[in-house]
Structure formats: C-alpha cells, structure tokens
C-alpha cells in the first residue's frame, strides 16, 4: 500500500482525518452562525450576503468541498466507531466510569449518535432552506430572510431545531477538545474547557435564531 494510504487507513491516521474534517466543519458552522445571526439584526444585509455567496461561481467548489468534508468525516467516523466495537465486542456486566482524571462523559459516549443525527438533519435542513420556497426581495436577490422567518413560525420545526442544536452542542462538547488531542496537541485541561465553552456558545447561538423568530417573528 502507498505510504499515504497506509497513513489514512491506520487507526491514528483515521483519527487525524476525523479531527481535521471535524474542525473544518466546525469552522463552516462558525461562519454559518455569524451569517445567520444577521437574520435577527439586518434582514437586507443577510439577503445581500447570501446573494453574494450564491452568485459567486466559486460557491460550487465550496459546496462540494463542504460535502466532501462531511462525507469524509462521517465515513471515517463509522470506520473508527466500528473498529472500536470489533476491538471490544463484549461490555462489562458491571460497567462504571473510572472518574478521576477521565474525560468520559455522556457526550463522549454518544458521539456516533449525536453525529449520526446530522445525517438526518443536514439533508432536511438544506432541503428546507436552500431548496425551499423562492421569494423575491427584488433586484434578483432571493429573500431568504422571509423564508427563514416563515419556516420558524412552525412550532414543531422550531422544536426540532432546538433539539438539533442541543445535539450539536453535545457533539462539540467532546469533539472540539478531542480533535486537538487527536492532532497531538499535548493535552491541557484548559484546551478541553475552551472547547466545551465554544460548544455551548455554538449551540446557544444557533438555538437563538429559531426561538427569537418564533416568539417575536412579527417584529422582524
């Protein structure tokens, strides 16, 4: 096997891929969140921004890259998860957490589920917004703002998002610190803490949007 192949298929190489893709997906979410917060602040700006995005031919490459990251991440995720199961098929009859210096948490033990959720969420989400109803804001600019606001009048969708964003928080709670450790950044308690704070901020920020729109949508 080629040296590259050997690295990418090694258990450590896979974790490096997961970490890199995971962090890049996270970066996308950071920009995505900041952009989306415009919805609450400045509808016109938001529309202008997303217009700028979609009208830029590079978007296709960007979108493809994003998709690739996403696929790479969850494919390796399944491989990693599976190799773990194969290595330890049988669990203990009396199974407890060691506590002490351990980082084991609900978040760390449900990564596959929290992550898996996005396999469901992202397609629905993209379908709902990207390929959702087309409103014209005039001048060939799509009125995404209106779309979002209308969508989030629906309580079940809002609930779904609130839950979804919490799950995102869980995934990042362990994920962010873990990613740096996978990349060999020598463990510091601080690193984990920061990751966890950011995870909460991300989840909170995203949750804000549907909730605010739902309760004071008319004001927007």
């Amino acid at each position, binding site marked *: 096997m*080629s*040296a*590259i192949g*050997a*690295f990418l298929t*090694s*258990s*450590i*190489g*896979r*974790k*490096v891929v997961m970490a890199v893709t995971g962090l890049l997906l996270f970066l996308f979410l950071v920009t995505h969140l900041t952009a989306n917060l415009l919805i609450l602040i400045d509808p016109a700006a938001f529309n202008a921004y997303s217009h700028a995005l979609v009208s830029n031919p590079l978007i296709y490459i960007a979108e493809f890259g994003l998709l690739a990251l996403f696929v790479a991440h969850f494919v390796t995720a399944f491989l*990693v998860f599976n*190799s*773990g199961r*194969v*290595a*330890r*098929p*049988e*669990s*203990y*009859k*009396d*199974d*407890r*957490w*060691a*506590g*002490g*210096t*351990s*980082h*084991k948490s609900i978040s*760390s*033990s449900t*990564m596959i589920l929290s992550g898996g959720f996005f396999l469901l969420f992202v397609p629905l989400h993209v379908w709902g917004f990207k390929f959702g109803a087309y409103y014209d804001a005039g001048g060939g600019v799509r009125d995404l703002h209106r779309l979002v606001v209308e969508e989030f009048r629906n309580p079940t969708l809002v609930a779904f998002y609130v839950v979804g964003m919490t799950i995102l928080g869980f995934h990042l709670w*362990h994920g962010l*610190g*873990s990613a740096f*450790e*996978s*990349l*060999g*950044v*020598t*463990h510091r308690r601080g690193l984990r803490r920061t990751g966890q704070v950011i995870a909460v901020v991300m989840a909170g920020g995203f949750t804000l949007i549907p909730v605010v729109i739902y309760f004071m949508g008319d004001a927007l």
Partner: protein
Amino acid sequence: METMTLNLRIWRQPRAAADGHLVEYTAREVSPDMSFLELLDVLNDQLIKGGADPIAFDSDCREGICGSCGMVISGVAHGPQSATTACQLFMRQFKDGDTITVEPWRATAFPIIKDLAVDRSAFDRIQAAGGYVSVDAGGAVDANEMLIPKDDADRAMDAAACIGCGACVAACKNASAELFVGARITQFSLLPQGQPERDRRVLAMVEQMEKEGFGPCSNEGECEAVCPKEISVAHIQTLHREFSRASMRRIFAAR
C-alpha cells in the same frame, strides 16, 4: 479487629471457547488488612476443600510492580482505589455487606484463558516490533559520554514506569492500547539513544498494535484514570505526533 462479610459475583469461564457467567460467592470474616488477591486465595482454599474448581487469576510480585494481576473490580479496572493494582487493593477499601463484581479484562486482543486470567502476549508482540534500542551487548560507549538533561531523564522515567498490566486496554471502550504504546514511544523519543530508530519504531509498533486487534483512541481518558502508574494521556498525544510525523516523512521520502 472487626471483619466483614462480602458478596462476590465472580466471572467463571472454564476455557477460552466455553461461555462464561457470573457466579455468586459469600466471603465471611474478611479482614480489612487482606489484599484483594488474598481474599481470592482464601475463597479458593474453601472451594478446593469443597471439591470445586478454584478461581484462576494471575499474580506474581503482589506489590504492584510486575503487572501480572489484573481484573475489573466493581466495574473499574484494578478496582475503586486510583493508582492501585488489584494486589495492592486492600479490603479496608470496602465495607461490610458490599457486593463486588469481578470480571476479567475484556478485549479481542486479550483472549480469556480461564476465569480472570487473560492472554496479554499481544503486548509482547508490539514490543518485539520495535519497543527497544537496537544495541548489542558490548557495543556501548561509556554511560557518561551521553549527557541527558535531568528533566528529559525524569520524563522518560515517568513513561517507563508502565508495568504492562493492560488496565488501559481493559478500561477503554475501544480496547485501545495507545496509552501503553504511547508510553514506550515517549520514553525513547525523549532519549538520545532512541533517535536513530525513532520513525521506524513508531510505525512498526502502531502497525503491530492494529494487527493485534486493539482499537482506536477516542480521547476519553479512562485509561489514565485506571492506570496504576498514572501514565498520562499526554503520551497518547505524543504517539499521535510521532506517528504522524513519521508517516509524513515516509510519504515525502517515497516521492
């Protein structure tokens, strides 16, 4: 001195192929000064007298240094007391009436031999793949010709303290051996003696580690928490660095 009565649920499995199950025992007049293995000794003597098969488990030094003994006690590798091997776990850690479940290390790479005894030879094969400095007897220079900063020597010693018990694997949801391998890699990466074979070593040991069927590391840190020698997960991060660096060198050397 007052003694205790304890309920034990111990994993019994006649041989690798057979399937096992937990068997209940009651241990009476347990002295708090007994070690956990001495408790098993006493129980075994009762079993033998009663014509039953005693519980098989490994032990040798009984002072926490050889790494032979290993069992999951009350859901935690080597039991509830941190930085302690099963042989150094004393019954004063428990209270009268406690129920204690005892199970073997569980990992595909550590097949069960009998009851609580498992086969850890996978660790030896990993070491054989590169866990050493290639120097023949007689070929060495004077020990003081090689100056090593005290801090490096001390950190190398921290890593070298691993006793090869396998608790890290047992405690890891992925049965990952990265703490064990990382400790050895760190020791040699810190020392001048380890430099010439630095890349070769880490690539070979990781490859063997996977061949043996140990899982990946999800950075949960249970291993550090149960390690009797408190080997830090920092060694796993070092392992990832060393392995990635070596792989990159190999990739670009291939060009």
